[in-house]
């Protein structure tokens, strides 16, 4: 077998296609930050434990630090730079501003990408560990939001306002859906 330690890939990020050759060891996180200059996605633990690197892959939230870039070819990546609708902020972004859902801001882009997906998961009636009866659709509640956002750590401890912001955005989504 011919040895190929790097691979030419095309990555589709926020609706744009980028062609690049990556060392196979490159994570999606490093490709976004170091190669495509999309530095909104943050590197926290680099071990899948903190959620700062959360992006959407085919619309679903993932830890980009554990996702190899080469394995993301052909899939649609959305980063925090791509969640707004032009100049109009995503409702989750607006809720973080309105309710002061951050302190230092380092975890915020991961929190926002995660929350965008949480609202989508609730709309699909996915259960969570906080769902009383997994046979029934989940309610939108602070308890559900806390559980669903548990993969996003905030060292400042801004959780109180993060939970309020995500809950408000989720409830607004329910009303307008």
């Amino acid at each position: 077998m011919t040895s190929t330690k790097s691979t030419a890939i095309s990555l589709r990020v926020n609706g744009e296609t980028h062609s690049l050759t990556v060392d196979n060891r490159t994570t999606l996180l490093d490709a976004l930050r170091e190669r495509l200059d999309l530095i909104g996605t943050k590197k926290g633990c680099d071990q899948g434990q903190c959620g700062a690197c959360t992006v959407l892959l085919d619309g679903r939230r993932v830890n980009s630090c554990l996702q190899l870039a080469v394995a993301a070819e052909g899939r649609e990546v959305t980063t925090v730079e791509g969640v707004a609708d032009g100049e109009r902020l995503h409702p989750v972004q607006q809720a973080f501003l309105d309710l002061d859902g951050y302190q230092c801001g380092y975890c915020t882009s991961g929190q926002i990408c995660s929350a965008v997906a949480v609202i989508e998961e609730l709309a699909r009636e996915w259960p969570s560990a906080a769902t009383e009866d997994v046979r029934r659709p989940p309610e939108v509640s602070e308890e559900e939001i806390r559980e669903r956002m548990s993969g996003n750590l905030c060292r400042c401890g801004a959780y109180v306002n993060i939970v309020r912001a995500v809950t408000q955005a989720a409830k607004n989504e329910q009303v307008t859906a």
Partner: protein
Amino acid sequence: MREFDYRRAADAHEAVALLSGEPEARFLGGGTNLVDLMKTGVENPALLVDVRGLPLDRVEVADDGALTIGATMTNSDLAAHPEVRHRYPALAEALLAGASGQLRNMATVGGNLLQRTRCGYFTDLSRPCNKREPGSGCSALDGEHHNHAILGWSEHCVATNPSDMAVALAAFDAVVRVLTAEGSAEIPLAEFYLPVGDTPHRETALPDGALITGVTLPAATVAARSRYRKVRERASYAFANGSIAAALHVEDGTVRDVRIAFGAVASRPWRAREAERALIGGPATPEAFAAAADAELAAARPLAHNGYKVPLIRNLVVSTLTELQEAAR
């Protein structure tokens, strides 16, 4: 991280062919455990064969009601599947008790079965570990082992299997479906994880180069009334200190069918057959549930710093079975 080749397989047969004759190759599913271990240098593959895109990402329902779950289905999709939520709720609960929303979106069923222990010494290359480096010794036996095994361990390794999903699968008599160059085969989950013995580095009965293609859950009416409960050091997003998957069917106060499996107590999900035997045909009372737990835990050999797991599991048995019985009234 060591440099590696990357290949994407179009189907399961091609995946097996790409891996054959490549002892340093690994299948790549969601990568949540493998990529992490490659970063720390515990895993050093020369080739990754990406199986994430294989068309094995659905649940099939057989005429007799058995479910066959494709190996590349994500943990999220499986937990959200209506057949799982309604007919095997403990499996949905177990999946949802594991990891985070992000990780469950990446992690596959096949990869979940093959995830490695979270024993801190396993990932600490500066310390002996028989699982990582056979013959080097076990640092946990007399070290930090408050969350290690109380059942089935040997002096060669006291690590636990970290999977929540596998605990529910063990309770429901799952069968692992595999593909090798010779053809397909089935391995009951009860035989899938090997006893520790003096070979803790050999964790499963999976033949060399075999690909897990799916898991079959036999139809079981008892499973519709089941729970997974997990005790951990944080409210969410943490590995278990102890967990239980249980299902109970009671008629006129008598136990007719019961399934019990424990997590975080052994190198594999621990099917509590002694406890089940003690309960079948007897009364469904808290006293009987406690006696059944004691029958199973008679074999427990706690380490210096994890004796708490014995009463923890005993309490989980009593409270979970009591809850299941009360829900049925």
